[in-house]
């Protein structure tokens, strides 16, 4: 399926004196991974909240899956999922109960089967009947993403999905995101890690001081820089590479 999943024009939002979004324009193609890159406080989460109907913009228009955010918020909620910045899981319930709860709220048939399938797919079978408060950060994120997949939404919002995760868990999340995109789901993700955007995204937009200051594929963004010079630099392994080598995991490219 091709077409536009998200179209945003002139989006504005202020909180009291603070003018957070000063006219954001962006387009996300269906089936792609789109990364919104920006430093802390740049307004990434505000964009996500507006597009997921949690906040109303002060100005501008936006449509999600073809529905206008102002007039058809219910339709949008039917077709999206949000994985917020803080893991949106119920700590006191078990992993399985969390999944069943969301399946019931989406009024699907056989919530237990859906939970079983997702537990298997996300490697959470063993932890299924443990309370989420005992989960590691990575497991919690995996459950969080699994909960967002219930009901097979066409579009998934991931707000800083790897913030606070260790490198191993981060790679796990990346793998999941890539698999999702391969199955045709559109993914809108925000991140403050350049590497994450580079790893995952088909298109990258940089949000800075309330505006999108650059937007394109990685190759296009690279062209914005002066042409590459050839230099001889001794390649030192990064600490992350060392860490991963020592613990015996290989980064999957």
């Amino acid at each position, binding site marked *: 399926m091709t077409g536009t999943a998200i179209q945003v024009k002139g989006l504005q939002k202020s909180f009291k004196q603070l003018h957070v979004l000063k006219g954001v324009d962006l387009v996300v193609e269906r089936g792609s991974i789109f990364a919104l890159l920006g430093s802390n406080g740049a307004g990434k989460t505000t964009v996500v909240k507006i597009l997921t*109907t949690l906040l109303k913009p002060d100005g501008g228009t936006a449509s999600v899956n073809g529905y206008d955010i102002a007039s058809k918020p219910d339709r949008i909620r039917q077709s999206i999922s*949000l994985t917020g910045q*803080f893991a949106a899981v119920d700590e*006191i319930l078990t992993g399985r109960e969390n999944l069943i709860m969301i399946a019931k709220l989406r009024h699907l048939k056989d919530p237990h089967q859906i939970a079983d399938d997702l537990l298997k797919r996300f490697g959470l079978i063993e932890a299924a009947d443990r309370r989420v408060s005992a989960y590691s950060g990575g497991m919690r994120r995996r459950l969080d993403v699994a909960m967002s997949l219930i009901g097979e939404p066409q579009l998934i919002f991931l707000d800083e999905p790897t913030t606070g995760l260790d490198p191993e868990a981060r790679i796990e999340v990346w793998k999941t995101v890539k698999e999702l995109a391969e199955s045709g789901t559109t993914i809108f993700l925000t991140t403050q890690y350049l590497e994450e955007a580079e790893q995952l995204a088909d298109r990258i937009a940089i949000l800075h001081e309330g505006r999108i200051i650059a937007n394109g594929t990685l190759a296009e963004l690279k062209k914005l820089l002066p042409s590459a010079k050839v230099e001889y630099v001794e390649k030192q392994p990064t600490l992350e590479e060392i860490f991963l080598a020592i613990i015996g995991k290989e980064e999957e490219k």
Partner: protein
Amino acid sequence: MEAVKRHFFSDMGVMLGRSMRHIIRSMDTIITVTIMPIAFMLLFVYVFGGAIQAGTDNYVNYLLPGIFLIAIASGIAYTAYRLFVDMQSGIFERFHSMPIARSTVLWGHVLTSLVSNGISIIVIILAALIMGFRSSAGVLSWLAVAGILVLFTLALTWIAAIAGLSAKSVDGAGAFSYPIVFLPFISSAFVPTGSMPSGVRIFAENQPVTSIVEAIRALLSSQPVGNDIWVALSWCVGIMLVAYIFAMRAYRKRV
């Protein structure tokens, strides 16, 4: 929108099931809302009771309405706490970005408050029966008692909602309930107000707990309820409406 409305009750059921699980898994909650009031009852009946001149030969009968109110007042502190925790974690935003009636997120907590307080009241009545509580009240009187307690619970639940929605910290979310738990002690719940010094007595006789306690006590002992029931109902409904308006204002500020 129609589809969303059609599922209102099943969504409420899911929300109720969720927070009832929270209660069952929290030993702390069970102790505070059920075991504590029963311990109070034991203490007052078997330790202080002998020295209290309540003008009745069955002190458990005299005391029980006040114990109900203490149980409910400590129960709603947890409603505020659960609401606060939901607002802090991402789960609230997840629910709000899903195709469900948004009001079920808040009303689920209100329903949980009613159900859980109802259960703890039943447990307390059973304990009171073992301790010698007897009532000559008929079905209609019991229904009237249940009605007053439901209104009292709703009134306090909406106060709890204000605290849960606007608190800045977990401690703040629960702290508002202490004065409410304390109110029955300065009322006719444990001792007749006649023995109190005049300043305290004026307060005790005119605060909501006294009229509620007197109304329930009269209903349970098949005495004429007189004016107390109307004063009690006015207090409950009045507090409920005012608290509801402020709770909804706090809620809208958050969404």
